[in-house]
């Protein structure tokens, strides 16, 4: 894999227009290829209308466009029925929807919800809330220092009281894949359900709800090359069907009388009000670019080469403490680290001055950073995508050398 060449950069207007920028924050939000921006505009220029209720052709086209993306997403994640794909704003809303609308039906006082300490706040606070509302207990699974979740830990934490296990497919800090299938088997053995946060996996690898054993799965379009504002929640049909809606209003009803209302079938039941139809349409273009134009195989190969190169160079610096699995092959685009003795915010600010965009802070994973014992509850994170190349990594390394020089040059 030749990571000096970059056949993709030209497809991404921001990157093409800013040769001075090394964008290493794709885990926060991806860059978008022109095909996605074109699609979004095309929607507004050719079929802009409020979907679902209109009887005129524009509106019908808008409705059909959304149905097509629903089918595309279903195929992407191996969902047997496109109807079970609910569009939301983002992963956070998807997970809130499960925590608020599914939990009450299954959680009784004394029951348990198990999550890992690696969860993003969006797959953590909603469960704190759901447990509080139900009088249930929120139980944590702790990995080894390298992110590995052992069978012992799973057996110790997932038991007959466990009604829900919620876990990330890929950690946004550790970068590693979690043993989702083993968690599924453990919780299913006790009749519970598995919620998968696939926000960090869909951009990098094929995701199949059946193979994972997921009962619910959430991800965000904007991390997978799509526009901001579109999230997905997939759920097993009978579970979605039995759930109450979280939001009510237009477009999600069957009939409304003054004192009561009945709901439309899944998925409309969960999509109150005017949806971002243009965004959904463009999300379709994004997923097509990701899985057809580029393809997961190429994504994986290129990202693996980039991560391996970055890992080696960062480790070689001598003043960088790397976080997560020691084997770079286990990192899916994400490398978290600290520059010894330097606050991550200062690292990010100094890198920014030379156009290197990384993220610094708690990465919406404070309990993880507390558990890892990271100073200041903060670290740096460089996250790579297939549209990065060797020069991005080189600039990161040069920038870190400069940081070290500023802070320790006269030691």
């Amino acid at each position: 894999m030749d990571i000096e060449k970059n056949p993709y950069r030209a497809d991404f207007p921001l990157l093409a227009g800013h040769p001075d920028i090394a964008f290493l924050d794709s885990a926060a939000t991806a860059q978008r290829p022109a095909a996605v921006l074109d699609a979004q505009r095309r929607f507004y220029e050719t079929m802009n209308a409020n979907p679902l209720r209109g009887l005129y052709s524009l509106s019908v086209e808008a409705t059909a466009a959304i149905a097509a993306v629903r089918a595309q997403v279903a195929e992407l994640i191996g969902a047997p029925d496109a109807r079970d794909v609910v569009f939301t704003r983002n992963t956070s809303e998807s997970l809130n929807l499960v925590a608020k609308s599914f939990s009450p039906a299954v959680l009784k006082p004394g029951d348990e919800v198990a999550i890992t300490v690696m969860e993003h706040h969006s797959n953590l606070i909603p469960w704190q809330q759901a447990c509080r509302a139900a009088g249930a207990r929120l139980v944590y699974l702790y990995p080894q220092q390298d992110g590995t979740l052992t069978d012992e830990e799973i057996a110790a934490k997932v038991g007959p009281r466990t009604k829900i296990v919620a876990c990330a497919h890929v950690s946004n800090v550790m970068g590693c894949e979690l043993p989702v299938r083993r968690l599924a088997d453990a919780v299913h053995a006790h009749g519970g359900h598995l919620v998968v946060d696939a926000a960090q996996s869909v951009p990098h690898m094929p995701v199949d709800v059946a193979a994972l054993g997921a009962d619910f799965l959430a991800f965000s379009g904007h991390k997978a090359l799509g526009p901001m504002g579109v999230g997905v929640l997939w759920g097993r049909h009978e579970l979605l069907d039995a759930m109450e809606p979280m939001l009510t209003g237009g477009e999600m009803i069957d009939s409304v009388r003054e004192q009561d209302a009945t709901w439309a079938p899944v998925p409309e039941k969960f999509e109150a009000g005017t949806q971002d139809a243009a965004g959904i349409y463009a999300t379709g273009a994004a997923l097509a670019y990701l899985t057809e134009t580029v393809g997961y195989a190429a994504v994986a190969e290129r990202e693996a080469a980039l991560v391996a190169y970055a890992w080696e160079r960062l480790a070689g610096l001598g003043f960088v403490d790397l976080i997560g699995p020691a084997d770079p092959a286990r990192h899916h685009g994400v490398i978290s680290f600290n520059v010894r003795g330097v606050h991550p915010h200062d690292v990010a600010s100094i890198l920014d001055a030379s156009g290197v965009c990384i993220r610094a802070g708690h990465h919406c994973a404070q309990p993880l950073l507390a558990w890892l014992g990271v100073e200041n509850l903060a670290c740096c994170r460089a996250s790579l995508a297939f549209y990065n190349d060797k020069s991005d990594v080189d600039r990161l390394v040069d920038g870190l050398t400069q940081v070290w020089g500023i802070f320790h040059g006269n030691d």
Partner: protein
Amino acid sequence: MATTDLYNAEFMDHVSHPDYKYELEDADCTHEGVNPSCGDELAFSVRFAEDGTIGEAAFTGHGCAISQASADIMSDLMIGKTPEQARELCALFMRMVRGEETDEERLEELEDGVLLRDIAHMPARVKCAELAWRTLDEMLAGREGQEA
């Protein structure tokens, strides 16, 4: 971009060799400040001189270079100032880092504080730069309230 200019030798000297980062034994007032989203924590202490001006100032805590340098610079500036003067300087500093005050002559009153002028172009770091000044200002405001 001005970020690396910010982290210059003079600024870094306040970070690496702060003159005022120590436990002030016989403090008249101590006040704590935190930036929950960054994890910066600061405790700022003051001993007043007999004439009511600030006789000694010191801080402890941890955080990024900007919050640390800012605290050190501020401590130095405040010695010999009356509480009123101190609060005016705090207000001036906060206007500077938010980009609301750019008049060179006025900013000179902040002495080494002007090293942080470029924060005005780094909105994400304003909170770090302000932490010490906000903490001192709160402390002095609280004291006024007590005396009144």
